């Protein structure tokens, strides 16, 4: 995949909102130690390469800046493989209902 994106390409940017150590006082230790980061998508306002500082126009028409991280960012969430602990439940409960209807 090319690292170069043309002006107008649909991309994802990344930026640091609050550095570690400048987090809200109420956050727990583990969260204090990491920065608050943002990811947003939009149309690239100038041709650029992954890793460049860029500006995008979002779907709401706002201009946001950050580091170009992904060109045409995919949706990767899925189901994954079936889970053994769930896969037999249907047969188990159908058997209970069958037994109940036979004994009635």
């Amino acid at each position, binding site marked *: 995949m090319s690292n170069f994106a043309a002006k107008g390409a649909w991309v994802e940017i990344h930026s640091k909102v*609050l550095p570690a150590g400048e987090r*809200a006082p109420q956050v*727990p230790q583990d969260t204090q130690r990491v920065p608050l980061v943002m990811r947003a998508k939009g149309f690239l306002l100038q041709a650029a390469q992954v890793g460049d500082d860029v500006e995008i126009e979002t*779907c709401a028409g706002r201009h946001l800046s950050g580091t170009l991280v992904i060109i045409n960012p995919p949706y990767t969430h899925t*189901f994954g493989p079936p889970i053994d602990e*769930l896969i037999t439940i*249907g047969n188990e409960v159908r058997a209970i209902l069958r037994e109940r209807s036979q004994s009635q």
Partner: protein
Amino acid sequence: MSRYQHIMAQKEEIVKASVGLDYAHYTTGLLAFDYEKLLADTGYDVTTAADIQRQTAVGNTPLVELKNITELVRATAAPGNGARIFIKDEAANPSGSFKDRRASLSIHEAKKRGYSGVAAATSGNYGAAVASQAAKAGLRCIIVQEAFDSQNIAQPEIAEKTRACEAYGAEVIRLSVGPELFYVFLKVLKDTGYFNASLYTPYSIIGIETLGFELAQQVKELCGRFPDAVITTHAGGGNVTGTARGLRKAGAVDTQMIAASVDLSGLHMASDHDFNRKSFTTGHTGFSMPFSTWPDRADVPRNAARALRYMDRFVTVTQGEVFYITQVLAELEGLQRGPAGNTSLAAAFAIAREMNEDHIVVVQETEYTGAGKHPLAQLNLAKKLGIEISRGDPKDNKPGVRIVIPRAPSQIAVTDVDLPGVRRSYLRHALEHLPSDTTLGAIDLQFLADETRTDLKFVEESIDELHRTAG
């Protein structure tokens, strides 16, 4: 002053401009405010809300009797027990959950007042609802989500919400873990001047009233009477509040309102480490405990979702029980539905077992399901993070460590939350918010009785007790 503090200091003016409500106007005491007037002054009620919702095909969702699940309950119940279970199929709303009801009046109001766009801070179904309604109304939309941890692992259900919001043409700001989401949200509101379609305004709550109202009417029509109990998946409290208000407005004043949450005790809501170990994104105690014991922690000065005013009973179920019942719903009733509504279904399964055969229990919502927003996605992520998955006794379920899927339906049970304890915790928070060197007057004491759904005696005794233990 840090960047964070600088924006947070402007919170009041930003919020005021973005919701167009003068909350100060409703203050009646040191803590007290006129809750009913705040809602009434919107000019909307359950009837006008339903009219507005009809224009975008929101509401009028089917009520489905779960006959096979009821049979399964009866197979595990004492003879003569096992109430009829119905479910309100809120997944039939345009964006797939009851949250369309919640978004509808905000978008209507934003449009009416000439805002050019709407924004909402939400990682859940509500974002999709706001985006869907905004798309139809021709308004721009920005959704701010807490979406991934410091390893850049996205919570799969929230990833699906990102996709849904983007499908409706919204800008989605995805953030790593932390309550500073509110800081980013305030910056968005300040930048854009958009309407804050908060989950917690009076518009949101009145929009949900139609759910309780419809449900009561549907049960009455089908069964000749109102339901004995309605079970509601409970997080920030809007679902309980709006549904209960709607039930009352339909005349179902004796129907028991039961709130149900997934028990996530032991996990910290603002922890980067725990974020992806919850396996649930809503309807859990990480929201319902803090919001029940102090609702005014929202993105508006006075939260219109005040669940403690409406709950008759508050129960928890385990993660494993909800995954189990989700599978049962699909395989016995032919309904593949998302996780949140199934929290109250798991509770209904246990509660129906305690009730008489001719009693009626309603699970008041379903939500859509799909990639990411599904037990398989959650359990596969849990496994990857080292959480143990097994069949066994739900009592051994330990959030973040072990998810135990029940061996048999007879093991599904609810744990009652100590409601008087929750009420005392609310009162403790109230005292913490009392300006120093002030004392509570009659208006405030009555307000606290209303808030906790108790009486002056309970409030005064609890406050005395709190002073004694503090002093």
